[in-house]
């Protein structure tokens, strides 16, 4: 049988899926082992046990100076910033994006501006944000908003414009006002795509969060890894990178599950008809 027609069984698929992860860990363990044979105090590739020990300390042993559980406070601070930034960007996408997509006058007024605005590399605005808002929370959240809102607004506007004209006309013939069309047709049809937009925006969202924290912060996941970089503390950095990745993965899955739960009709399409 041709390879394109060979479907792996469930257990084989699981095994194949795990394989690259296991391979990465094993490769790391071997490389680390040989480096430490040469120099038992090697900092670049610490052993997995050492990293787990450090991670445990960050997670469960209160910091000697502040008395905080560092991993917990770092995670909470970072997620609050990311959450606030993405929430504001989502709100902007809902209001501005839908207005641009649905109302031609607003589209004429704002679409060219938004198209130009979204081309500004967000990180270049960071000094401006620091000057205007200072080094506190506002400028970090503003950077995330700046980096994610324009693309979210544009994709939301596009999602509204992708609603077949026939449906809008049908709603008009059923006596709907513009407001009612927004509530019952445009927003419900756009929401699943908005959730997809959030999932995509979280990728640059994390980048801007970590960047802002690296440059000016006294807490957060990005702050921590750039702080310990000075001591070549790979035993902190590597577990933190894995932890950040895990958080990003969980948030993504959560949003997908949410979408399936709230918008079952969207996920029915194509499966059964």
């Amino acid at each position, binding site marked *: 049988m041709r390879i394109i027609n060979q479907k792996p069984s469930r257990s084989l698929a699981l095994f194949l899926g795990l394989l690259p992860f296991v391979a990465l860990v094993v490769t790391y363990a071997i490389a680390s082992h040989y480096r430490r044979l040469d120099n038992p105090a090697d900092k670049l590739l610490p052993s997995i046990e050492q990293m787990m020990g450090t991670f445990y300390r960050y997670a469960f042993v209160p910091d000697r100076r502040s008395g905080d559980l560092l991993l917990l406070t770092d995670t909470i601070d970072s997620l609050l910033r990311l959450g606030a930034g993405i929430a504001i960007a989502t709100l902007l996408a809902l209001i501005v994006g839908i207005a641009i997509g649905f109302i031609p006058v607003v589209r004429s007024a704002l679409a060219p501006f938004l198209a130009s605005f979204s081309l500004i590399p967000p990180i270049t605005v960071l000094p401006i944000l620091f000057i205007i808002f200072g080094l506190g929370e506002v400028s970090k959240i503003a950077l995330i908003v700046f980096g994610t809102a324009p693309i979210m607004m544009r994709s939301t506007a596009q999602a509204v414009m992708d609603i077949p004209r026939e449906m809008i006309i*049908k709603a*008009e013939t059923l006596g*709907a006002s513009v407001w009612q069309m927004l509530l019952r047709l445009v927003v*419900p049809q756009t929401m699943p795509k908005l959730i997809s937009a959030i999932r995509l925006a979280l990728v640059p969202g994390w980048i801007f969060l970590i960047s802002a924290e690296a440059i000016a912060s006294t807490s957060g996941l990005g702050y921590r890894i750039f702080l310990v970089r000075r001591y070549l503390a790979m035993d902190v950095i590597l577990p933190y990178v894995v932890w950040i990745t895990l958080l990003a993965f969980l948030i993504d899955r959560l949003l997908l599950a949410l979408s399936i739960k709230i918008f079952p009709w969207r996920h*029915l399409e194509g499966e059964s008809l």
Partner: protein
Amino acid sequence: MSQNDTIISVKNVAKFYDQVPVLERVNISVERGTFCTIVGASGCGKSTFLRMLLSQELPTRGEILLDGEKLPDEPTADRGIVFQKYSVFPHLTVKGNLLLSQEFEQAPMSGKLYGNAKTIALEKIDETLEKIGLSAARDKFPSQLSGGMQQRLAIAQALLKEPKILLLDEPFGALDPGIRLDMHELLLSLWEDLNMTIFMVTHDLNEAFKLGTRMLVFDKIRHDPHAPNAFGATITYDLNIASCSQSNAQDAEMYFAKSPNSTEET
């Protein structure tokens, strides 16, 4: 029938796209209760004509009167529509689709009914659900229904708003022949029950004869070989099918076949 029974009158309507005429000199008046079928070759403006009745497009010249008054410039609740595709809302269940027009009417701010008002509204659609045979599927989403069921839902949804005229744009074009026959029966019984005025664009000549009481044929009558776009189409035949018996339909088809440019490709 008397003069004041006219529901639609079209006066010297023309439609141009970028100075290219698509329709010209369209003049008809249609009486209340007519089932008007519209046929013609592709690109002969029959769908354009329907879209002008809907105000989805506006005539370049001339005017269309509904009950003696000029049509508004946008689609409104006095004209119902069923398209071939995208005719129901995919994010609402069968029940939700049918409730929508009542919700628009009764809840201007929220657009949604709750509690007691919803119960009453649901009772009103029960009979409709029964009639279109979708009682068992009331909680399903359109994508879980067959094409025929979706179109039945679309027709019922449009009729619940009780429009003055119902416009159908090739509503059965994507359905299997067997399903089409069922749809014909449903449509005819609804038309008789409600004493509706219906305009229906179709590709299928037999369908047009079977369902219609009046058939409009759109075609180009003037041709300039050096400038194929110089002239638009107009109504070339206006057949009163109700007055001829079923056997006469055969004659009409013969007569129809003699038209200068064949109007049917199939």
